[in-house]
């Protein structure tokens, strides 16, 4: 498995590219140049690492889940604790990186999209920290459902703009953010939240998230003097997954991505992009997506707001097609059970997104032997989901 992706057209095999209005092309070229320079600039990288350490709480621990391991009776399970990162999820790694990049490029205004609010809070947070102006688009429907995150962003000094188009959720917030960027591309930096969007975004975000896997590799080396045998992550856009997977792509490590099966892949209520999607273009990138026979994008469904995206990062499409990573769809109910299991057994209360990875990981771990090692990317904490989980469990009790 060669890692020279993306190629110079921003392609990961057949996927990726820059399918955007001409207005944005120059900005993407400018971003690409700026990113490549920054990534190779020691001062910038020091800034990035320093901010992650002194502000965001890196390195995050690699926690051995002893009781869980014993209970499942298979592989030794380790959790990479992105839930302990400032603001509660891996999203901040990327927000820090991109905001530093924006500053380096002399941009003082940031625009971002957000679904449940996780990336929006991360973005508003780094903007507050760095004194950048911040505008976050959020579907009007999501703003209603996640009003506390709206309030958090506002407290952080961000302006939250309702996306009124389409189904008024993440997909539409992304459209609106891109539209806003098109109109203000000269002084505004678009800080995208996952490994999606036009090139070079999937690469930029991957590089700012690979610290997850890099640290994991080092920590496991220190603890076990070994690579893991398998790594598991959940996949919305795919940023925490690629962050975990990327440093292991050329190693003998099995990689598993959990996407959201919602109410089941056999129903019309899911977000199982790889399992049930077809190729197409979304938000500037050629990738798998959920669409109808006319190429209209279908609003996906998952109990987890962070996995509720109709596309997936182009690199994942490539990794799926090449067979390097196994993607499986996990239902709402399966995720919920796994969430309860981890909480009760290890005292770690994960995000519902993460819980999808847990379900898949538990199933794999059971099939593995006791001398094998499996790491899970615990992408975020569950605090943001308490209401959803509560309602879901109450529904369960009633039915």
């Amino acid at each position, binding site marked *: 498995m060669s890692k020279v992706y993306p190629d110079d*057209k921003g392609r990961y095999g057949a996927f990726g*590219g*820059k*399918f*955007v*209005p*001409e*207005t*944005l*092309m*120059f*900005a993407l070229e400018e971003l690409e140049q700026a990113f490549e320079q920054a990534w190779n600039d020691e001062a910038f990288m020091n800034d990035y690492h320093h901010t992650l350490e002194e502000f965001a709480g890196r390195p995050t621990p690699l926690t051995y889940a002893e009781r869980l391991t014993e209970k499942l009776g298979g592989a030794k399970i380790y959790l990479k604790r992105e839930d302990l990162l400032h603001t509660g999820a891996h999203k901040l790694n990327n927000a820090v990186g991109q905001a530093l990049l924006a500053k380096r490029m002399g941009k003082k205004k940031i625009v971002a999209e957000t679904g449940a609010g996780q990336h929006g809070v991360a973005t508003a947070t780094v903007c507050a920290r760095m004194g950048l102006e911040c505008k976050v688009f959020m579907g009007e429907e999501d703003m209603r459902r996640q009003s506390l995150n709206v309030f958090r962003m506002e407290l952080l000094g961000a302006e939250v703009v309702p996306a009124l*188009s*389409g189904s008024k959720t993440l*997909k*539409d917030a992304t*459209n609106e953010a*891109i*539209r806003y960027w*098109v*109109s*203000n*591309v*000269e002084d505004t930096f678009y800080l995208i939240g996952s490994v999606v969007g036009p090139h070079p975004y999937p690469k930029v975000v991957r590089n700012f998230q690979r610290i997850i896997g890099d640290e994991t590799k080092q920590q496991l080396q220190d603890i076990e003097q070994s690579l893991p045998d398998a790594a598991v992550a959940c996949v919305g856009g795919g940023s925490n997954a690629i962050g975990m997977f990327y440093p292991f792509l050329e190693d003998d490590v099995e990689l598993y991505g959990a996407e959201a099966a919602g109410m089941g892949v056999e129903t019309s209520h899911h977000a199982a992009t790889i399992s049930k999607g*077809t*190729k*197409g*273009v*979304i*938000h*500037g990138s*050629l990738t798998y*997506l959920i*669409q109808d*026979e*006319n*190429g*209209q*994008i279908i609003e996906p469904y998952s109990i987890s707001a962070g996995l509720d995206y109709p596309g997936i990062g182009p690199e994942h499409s490539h990794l799926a097609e090449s067979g390097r990573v196994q993607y499986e769809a996990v239902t709402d109910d399966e995720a919920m059970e796994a969430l309860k299991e981890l909480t009760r057994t290890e005292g770690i209360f994960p995000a519902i997104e993460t819980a999808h990875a847990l379900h898949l990981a538990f199933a794999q771990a059971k099939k593995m032997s006791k001398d094998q090692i499996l790491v899970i990317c615990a992408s975020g904490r569950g605090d943001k989901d308490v209401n959803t989980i509560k309602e879901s469990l109450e529904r369960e009790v009633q039915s």
Partner: protein
Amino acid sequence: MTRQTVREAAESASYPLFIPFIMAGDPNKETTIELALTMQEAGAHILELGIPYSDPLADGPVLQRSALRALKHGMSLTEAIELIPEMRKKGLTIPVIIFSYYNPVLRMGIETFIEKLTENEADGVLIPDLPLEESEELSTLTKKVNLANISLVAPTSSTRLEKIAAQAEGFLYCVSSLGVTGTREEFPPEAYAFIEEVKASSEVPVAVGFGISTPEQVKRLQGSADGVIIGSAIMKKVEGLQAELEHEAKRRDALQSIQQYVEGLLAVPSSHQQ
């Protein structure tokens, strides 16, 4: 009589070369067919037939709403292309360009798409989210069948302008100013210098789009651009006349008033209607 190519139509027009954009299926097929003819009537030289899309990220609110209405009525890429022969049957002679986001095209398959276009006598394509770097596959095919693949340049194209202009087919779509489609009261002052720069680089006629909605704008562009592309202003009018357009008996009058509105926009001293 063989139809003019897009380039011929563009080149033969005196100012303003007029390229209206209409959304297929808003509010229904019948209207779209009639509207095409109305535009020809009003002096259109080339027609942009828009394909409604769920996620039109280059479009402002007016065209977003228009697309939603069309989708609700079941319009699709296939059906839209198949409207062209019906327009022709009713007397449409000007070239027709299919305006679609890339995803519906990909979903159909590029080759099928090209086949359908030629079969149904379309004359060109415009994919707003397919920049030069990504359009090779499509261009190769369109060239083979003599379809114009329309390119756009934007104020931010900067060093890219030359490259794009060099490959332009039919006419060059010059995006007036940063932003999405929609009506703008005025263009920013730097817009005119940019348009002149584009004009100087281009061998094909240059039509300016994005935001044109007043006769003053059309007048002001004379001398720098060759023509105008008007979309949101027209579809806003259509939006205002939804009820009438859906009602067969009232459709004629509604179309009439749209025609007058468009003629008003184009009423520059040296009218093309000679």
